[in-house]
């Protein structure tokens, strides 16, 4: 039963990898740093998992570990998206007037 759902999870994993390859191959080199930090913010999705393991009531060892995971993942998510935005707002095209 669990193995069946594991297999489905594998399908999802592999297909998402291919989707990732397709989408990201098209990113130009000039955006590689923002791509990296943006993708990194997305890997902060671990926050969802951290919320799940911290979910049960009370401060037990598992939820305490979960709390640390929440803090780390939130830094990753908030910092990652903000710093990416800071970088991307600096990218501009040459204004048409001169040259």
């Amino acid at each position, binding site marked *: 039963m669990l193995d069946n759902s594991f297999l489905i999870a594998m399908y999802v994993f592999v297909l998402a990898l291919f989707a990732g*390859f397709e989408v990201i191959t098209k990113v130009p080199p000039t955006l590689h740093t923002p791509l990296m930090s943006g993708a990194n913010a997305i890997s902060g999705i671990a926050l969802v998992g951290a919320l799940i393991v911290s*979910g049960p009531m009370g401060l037990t060892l598992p939820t305490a570990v979960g*709390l640390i995971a929440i803090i780390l993942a939130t830094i990753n*998510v908030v910092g990652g998206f903000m710093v990416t935005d800071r970088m*991307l707002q600096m990218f501009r095209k040459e204004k048409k007037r001169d040259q």
Partner: protein
Amino acid sequence: MSDMTFTMTDGISAVYLITIILFIYGLHLMNSPATARNGNRLASVGMLIAIVATLLDAGIVNYTLIATGIIIGSIIGASFARAIQMTAMPQAVAIFNGLGGGASGLIAISEFMRLNEAPDTFTMTLSITIVLSILIGIVTLSGSLVAFGKLQGIVSGRPIQFPLHRWISLLFVILIAAVGSSLVITPNETVFFVLIAACLALGILLVIPIGGADMPVVISLLNSYSGLAAAAAGFVLENTVLIVAGSLVGAAGLILTRIMTKAMNRSLRNVMFGGVGGTSESKDISEGDAREPAREVTAEDAAVGLAYADTVIFVPGYGLAVAQAQHQIKQLANLLESRGVQVKYAIHPVAGRMPGHMNVLLAEADVAYDKLFDLEQINSDFSQTDVTVVVGANDVVNPAARETVGSPIYGMPILNVDHSKSVLFLKRSMNPGFAGVDNELFYKDNTMMLFGDAKDSLNKLVQAVSEED
């Protein structure tokens, strides 16, 4: 978690689908600088949706603890993101990679502890995914911290290798495999902590022998691992949004890793275990005796060539980032353009310490991105260029990569600056680049060397060019 009502689970899964769509579309918008900012925003909205949906889960009731974690994390994350300098972006990405990986590893640790309270709840699949998740997550954490230390200058940027390094690393791999298998068969708390400690050690052992100029590869690889760690945690929790988002990031990191190793003409294996650039540092200086000395010039001499050129290409390297001279290069470019000189920038894929490092620095200095050109785009332009100004780069313009069979950098794609009519090197000294290979280009007739800190030299050039008639 399987005793939840079906409707709630279904509802949350449906919302996760929206998140996944926003992530993929957001990454898709990253394919142009014009739309990338919106892409990043869409992805952050997707993240927010996933978090809110998860909090609606009936099994999540520990609100005080969760709020505490989110508030602390948000404050630290936001202040870090505001304070960090653009020149320190490689360090920032390294630390974020580590945090993401660490969070994923901790999820698996927490899940192990919870299940271990009633050991018969473990299944084989679950145990395997927990072990893998801890392995990837914790290696990412400690490896990223070492990478951060190297980039920040806390740990030496030179490759650090001690006797039997590879054998010790291998020993740890075997230890982790053994401990991991034993945990899958019988969960045991002590063995579990051995696993965590061994994974921490392995991350350090893997990154510490890698030198500074190979950092673009290491950061890309750790970026990929941080994604795979999230995906592995997704397997542990059977959570689709973690699996999909994690593997998207895993794919992104792998693509960047591949681009970086190709740009250095090295295999990943060679970067990880080659330890390039620590040994032969000064032997080539004596070899230089036999040939013409390099021609050292003053800023005033160099300025004449620049001021009366028709076309100038700037080639920035890591030295530009170290000197934080991105604004000065832009100032010089503005001055030249106002005199009618056509200015372009040539960016080698591995210039700097992470993919796209130079592009971000120049963007900060307000250089338009359509003036920045990749290797393939610009290499044919050098032969029609009057002056190529190399600022703090070396190996990526060394003709030995094209001509000297047997050179450590032979076969690496380089910018053909030697084809231009003249070359001006802004360098701190005659020292060879990271690979420890002497650069013949320094000694050519049409090459000028302007020694000094990149920022000072550029300032002097600005001064001297503005004094030309």
